[in-house]
């Protein structure tokens, strides 16, 4: 099925970089040359053989911090995206299939949540709640789920009126069969495309929160937090803040390249096996 030669170059680059980031995230303790909070040199030391990316504002090895940062960033973003997708799509499909007052109530509630700018909403909630990892993931996941809900409901409403869904209803199938076996496979391609985008938004959102001091708390740091820690160095011509910022951009681009390719493979309008 999967022929390596037929994967376009852009997707190969995306796959390679994404795999690299994932590898760093999974095996951080084994590949990082120094510990996460270990002070090993001067403040903002230059790039050298012992410190491949230099050191940060407290004299910690920047490469090791980056690798641990990848672990934290990707873990939180993946968890939040997964939560938002499961929550958003199941609720969206249910709203479309059941309809009536349930649909109305849920949709208006989602409208309510969406009418408040996400960043402000998250800032308010996170400054009230204790700042733990779980709260962070929950807040990000639920806020993102509103977007997924909208998309899933819109797609499912279209599919729900197709004859094959009516045929399943006439057969006497239950709601869960209709949602998971009839609608979900046909709604998958727009959702997969959205998945890549949503993941990137989660990374950016997390970075923004950490930069503002409400995300991951020191001594741990995600990439956004590391930009914050090192931002004062920019004034003195120290590039330490640019490295995590660049990593965020690179991750965003590579995941998007993969998402594009997946979308191309699955978005055959006729269904069936999909196209090339």
């Amino acid at each position, binding site marked *: 099925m999967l022929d390596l030669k037929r994967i376009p170059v852009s997707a190969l680059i995306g796959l390679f970089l994404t795999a690299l980031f994932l590898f760093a995230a999974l095996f951080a303790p084994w590949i990082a040359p120094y510990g996460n909070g270990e002070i090993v040199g001067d403040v903002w030391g230059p790039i050298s053989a012992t410190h491949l990316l230099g050191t940060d504002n407290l004299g910690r090895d920047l490469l090791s911090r980056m690798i641990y940062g990848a672990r934290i960033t990707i873990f939180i973003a993946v968890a939040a995206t997964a939560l938002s997708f499961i929550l958003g799509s199941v609720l969206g499909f249910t709203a479309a299939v059941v309809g009536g007052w349930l649909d109305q109530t849920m949709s208006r509630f989602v409208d309510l949540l969406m009418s408040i700018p996400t960043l402000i909403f998250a800032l308010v909630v996170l400054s009230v709640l204790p700042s733990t990892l779980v709260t962070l993931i929950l807040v990000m996941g639920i806020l993102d789920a509103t977007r997924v809900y909208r998309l899933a409901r819109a797609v499912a409403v279209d599919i729900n009126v*197709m*004859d*094959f869904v*009516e*045929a399943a*209803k*006439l*057969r*006497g*199938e239950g709601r869960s069969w209709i949602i998971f*076996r*009839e609608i979900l*496979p*046909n709604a998958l391609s727009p959702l997969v495309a959205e998945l890549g985008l949503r993941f990137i938004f989660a990374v950016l959102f997390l970075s923004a929160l950490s930069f503002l001091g409400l995300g991951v708390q020191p001594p741990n740091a995600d990439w956004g937090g590391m930009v914050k820690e090192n931002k004062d160095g920019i004034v003195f011509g120290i590039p330490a803040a640019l490295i995590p910022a660049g990593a965020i951009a690179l991750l965003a681009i590579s995941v998007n390249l993969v998402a594009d390719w997946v979308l191309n493979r699955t978005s*055959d309008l*006729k*269904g*069936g*096996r*999909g*196209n*090339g």
Partner: protein
Amino acid sequence: MAERTKTNPQRPGTGTLLDIRNLRIEATVYPPGEDPKNVVIVDDVSLTVERGKVLGLIGESGAGKSTIGLSTMGYGRGGVRITGGEVILNGRDILRSERGLRKRRGKEVCYVAQSAAAAFNPAHKLMRQVVEATLEHGVSNREEAEKRAVDLFRQLSLPDPENIGDRYPHQVSGGQLQRVMTAMALCSKPDLIVFDEPTTALDVTTQIDVLAAIKRAIQDTGVAALYITHDLAVVAQVADDIMVLRHGKTVEWGETRQIIKEPKQDYTRALVSVHAIDHDEHTPTPTPILSVDNVTASYGGGKVKVLKNVSVDIHPGQTLAVVGESGSGKSTLARAITGLLPPESGTVSFDGRVLANRLADRPKEDLRQLQMIYQMADVAMNPRQTVGTIIGRPLEFYFGMRGAERNRRVAELLDKIEMGKGFADRYPAELSGGQKQRVCIARALAARPKLIICDEVTSALDPLVAHGILKLLLDLQAEEDVAYLFITHDLATVKAIADSIAVMYRGELVRYGPKSKVLTPPFDAYTDLLLSSVPEMEIGWLETAIASRRMEAAGN
């Protein structure tokens, strides 16, 4: 038809207008999972059309009819390339003169599309679109063009010809829109008009009006025409000559009378005799399997009544055909029976017990006994499930079959619908139209039902394919002793397979009984209209039918 020339003195002088020589048209297709490949859509087709004559192009879908039609304008649809041959119009080869094409399109050759509703711009009034080509080519000024358009509207028997041009496309009916489109094609006084299935999307009662209008307009203006259709009976009414096409090749080309009376090729013969199915009418049994008793149903909370006091019976192992034009409530009757639209009053009883009104209140056993087959087979199947899953699901769901037992039964069912068990791994997108409908039949049969509702199951199919499906349904009825409720607007189908017939008109039952009784005079006005509107493969049928009509079609 020699007598036509006599009745038509202003017919322009004869001579060849269109001469297509060895036309070859190709396209590149991109099948999923394979390398792109070249397909030949039209292969070595030659034809000539004399001035003022009508040539009918006939064939199944994929025969290349429309592609040939469009090639007369030097046009290839979406990636289609004209790779060989000559198209000589008015003495010039239009394929060699790219520069002059725009001057010719809409002036010398005009096109009438199948779906007028999709071909008109909904944002502009009709008149503006009708005279557009005339003004573009500077044939006449706006005043004259509009005068001519009104004349054409009158000629095509459109209601209120002076003012219909002020309407928007959605404000006129489908049959009228098709005639307006014909007026649009005639307005710039072209030499040739290409009619691409102009009546296929219309109701049978509307089709006859449009057909008569088109025929009269062709005679009065003396324009030559290519008439493309898949219905031989229709083309026999308007064409002087007929060319039969199959897979892009010419099968037979001859005078209309010869083609329908003395076809030389087997394929033409099959097309001519397509509706001949032997079916002996069964007499009603004392206990019907399903009886619909005084059912009234409506949409929008009782505002729009779409079924008014309908009562019909279906007998075990027999077929009840429900006929009527669109909007007559045929499909609503099916929805009321299945419980998708709970009736407002009246009852549906099945096998002696009264069925719950709402689908959700019915036990699984009732649902199993009553299956449904849809008109559009490709949307009636989940495109992401294989044929095996589609047919296998009812087996799992109703009978709890699993694994090898289920697969064996799926293979058995595939065999029954005359497809091999190799099809079990295919997706719906990988089947032809007829095969898709067969799979839907197998899915319905899998439940071992006592009644299958067939909603226009053959109307989206080519005549020969539809013929195969009808025969299959009849064979299966004999084997499985299943009853059919057959919803259709095609009376030829009804004549072929029904045991009893219910004629519906605007939500009411106007005639109901055994087939032989319903189809025996005296008829009520509506049944008469329906019956007389079915094109017959006779030359001159159209004139006779129009003359003997007692009632206007609802769509007019």
